[in-house]
């Protein structure tokens, strides 16, 4: 699969999508329409979260219906660290709060990795529908914990008063913040691409297609899948931290099962297992949401209808329509 010609139709479309996502907010900046920059930032952050899920779902075939857990955890890491730094009070175990984005991302990666490890280890003992439901249940567990734990806002959520800082950039401005999100999205896409082309990626694909043969050549599918699940959670966690910074607010809704459903929707809309599937899906989803929201108050109904039609009639998603069938199952 890595020996495909360099400039396939999909590569060209991917490049166009990347340029489009970059050009849109730049044009909005030129026209003095900061709202559209925020819209593009939302696309980039949701796409980043979905790229994370795509590592588990697209490459590994692990249908996690609980990735909102990691998205929300990343968000809460950002919110909690910023709150402690803002109030200048130390946290448990003597950690200091921080408002530095790189430090927050690192913390989000560590926290999500540490939590994804046991969740993955238990969930991956199961497969198929059980896996879908148990990941959902773990996410619900964290959701209810966040709702009923009063220290960080409980059901009301937690506000971040000033957007966290990145050295050398004014993150309070929409465009620099968009660029941060955009670069991280590209980095995650590069990670996905490298993983897919690596020996690890090949083993992960094999674990999806035929775990028995994979174990026969001496590679344990469980370990491969667990590593993929943890990496996937970490990427989604970083997206959560950015999402919190985008809204300057974290609440349990980031952990809700609807959020997990949305990530799956993004991937399927764009095209499952494809490099730019989540990006195309996020662009389409946010634009549908925005366009429908402008036309009718009942946009969710029509969003549901569109999704239903995509699942029933347009298998392969947007990239499937534009770039043809994926090269492999």
């Amino acid at each position, binding site marked *: 699969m890595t020996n495909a010609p360099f400039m396939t139709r999909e590569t060209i479309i991917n490049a166009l999508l990347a340029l489009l996502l970059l050009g849109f907010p730049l044009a909005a900046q030129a026209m003095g329409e900061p709202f559209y920059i925020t819209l593009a930032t939302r696309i980039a952050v949701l796409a980043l979260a979905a790229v994370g899920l795509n590592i588990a*779902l697209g490459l590994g075939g692990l*249908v996690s*219906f609980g990735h909102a857990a990691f998205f929300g955890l990343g968000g809460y890491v950002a919110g909690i660290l910023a709150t402690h730094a803002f109030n200048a009070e130390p946290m448990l175990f003597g950690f200091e709060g921080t408002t530095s984005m790189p430090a927050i991302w690192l913390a989000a990666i560590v926290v999500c990795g540490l939590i994804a490890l046991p969740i993955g280890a*238990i969930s991956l*003992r*199961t497969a*198929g*529908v*059980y896996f*879908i*439901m*148990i990941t*959902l*249940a*773990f996410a*619900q*567990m964290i*959701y*209810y*914990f966040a*709702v*009923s*734990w*009063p220290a960080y806002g409980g059901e009301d959520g937690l506000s971040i008063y000033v957007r966290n800082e990145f050295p050398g950039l004014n993150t309070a401005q929409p465009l620099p913040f968009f660029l941060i999100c955009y670069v991280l999205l590209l980095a995650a896409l590069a990670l996905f691409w490298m993983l897919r082309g690596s020996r690890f990626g090949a083993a992960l694909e094999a674990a999806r297609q035929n775990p028995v043969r994979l174990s026969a050549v001496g590679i344990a599918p469980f370990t491969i899948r667990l590593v993929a699940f943890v990496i996937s959670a970490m990427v989604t966690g970083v997206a959560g931290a950015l999402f919190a910074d985008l809204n300057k607010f974290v609440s*349990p*809704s980031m952990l*809700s*099962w*609807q959020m997990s*459903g949305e990530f*799956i*929707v993004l991937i*399927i809309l764009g095209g*499952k297992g494809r490099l730019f599937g989540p990006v195309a899906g996020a662009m389409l989803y946010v634009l549908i949401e925005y366009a429908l929201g402008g036309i009718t108050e*009942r946009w*969710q*109904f029509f*969003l*549901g*209808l*569109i*999704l*239903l039609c995509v*699942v*029933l009639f347009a*298998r392969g998603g947007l990239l499937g329509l534009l770039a043809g069938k994926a090269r492999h199952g």
Partner: protein
Amino acid sequence: MRGGAYARTSELPLTLDLSPQVGRGGVFVAHFPASESIRLSIALLIEQLLNGLQLGVMLFLMAAGLTLIFGVMGLINLAHGSLYMVGAFACAAVAAATGSFWIGLVASLIAAAAAGAIVEVTVIRRLYDRDHLDQVLATFALILMFSEGTRWLFGSFPLYLDIPPLLQGAVPLPGGGQYQLYRLAIIGVGIVVAIGLYLLISRTRLGMRIRAGESDREMIAALGVDIRTLYTVVFALGAALAGLAGAMVGALQSVQVGMGEPALILAFVVIVIGGIGSIKGALFGAILVGVVDTMGRFLLPKALALAMPAAEAGPIGAALASMLIYIVMALILAFRPSGLFAAQS
């Protein structure tokens, strides 16, 4: 999201009946002999157990349909919670129009079964030979449509449904204390449905076909059974059970958009614990989840209060209690990855 709808159901009597004990606990201890306060807490314990049983029964009605649909058609249906909501809304609307809860209850069964049959014929039927990912997504889309459609029809304000006069009032419990008659009636309905389902599946021709469809669908189609109609019937049956659950819960809490999803997720936990496809597992899992959830919320804060200051024990206990069933589920799956009563390999 209205995450705590179920939690609130089970907490309702807690706040009603617990407050005298918590608020004036000292008074009781001071003025009555010790045996009196012990008797009171036994009554409270029985009451909480019954609440757990009632929650379990509701979950069984949801889970039985889900597990049947999965067992027979291999379909994971997220929109099952929407059918529960349809039942509740139909009951509330018809009861308000006719003034009779019972007509509303019949309407809820009909509405949910009809909605189920329509959805099966138009959408679900096309999903049977797709992978689970497509099923998740399509039924997720159905939830969006059902929720927004209901808001379209009934507006954003919740509806209220009164307990029918016949079932108002309370029943004395052994050891003092009283228990709502309506909740006892729900437990009774659940037991009747469980027996009815058992008889339907093990003793009737339809049940025989359902079991045959579970084990070998090609074969029973080849034997001349109309498998498409059978699937529609099974789906409508599951939908009707969910609608019944929704209608009965509707009288205990407000009827609103979004009420179905917390119930759906608990029902998922139930069928994962019980083993997907097994009705016996659904019954066992539902009662386990109902009782563990209710008793956890009741006992954990009290237990923690023995070890730490009461002001901290309350929130921590509540937070732990809300996670308890998921912890139980994780433990069960860690030892038995396909549930307690796995029906199929």
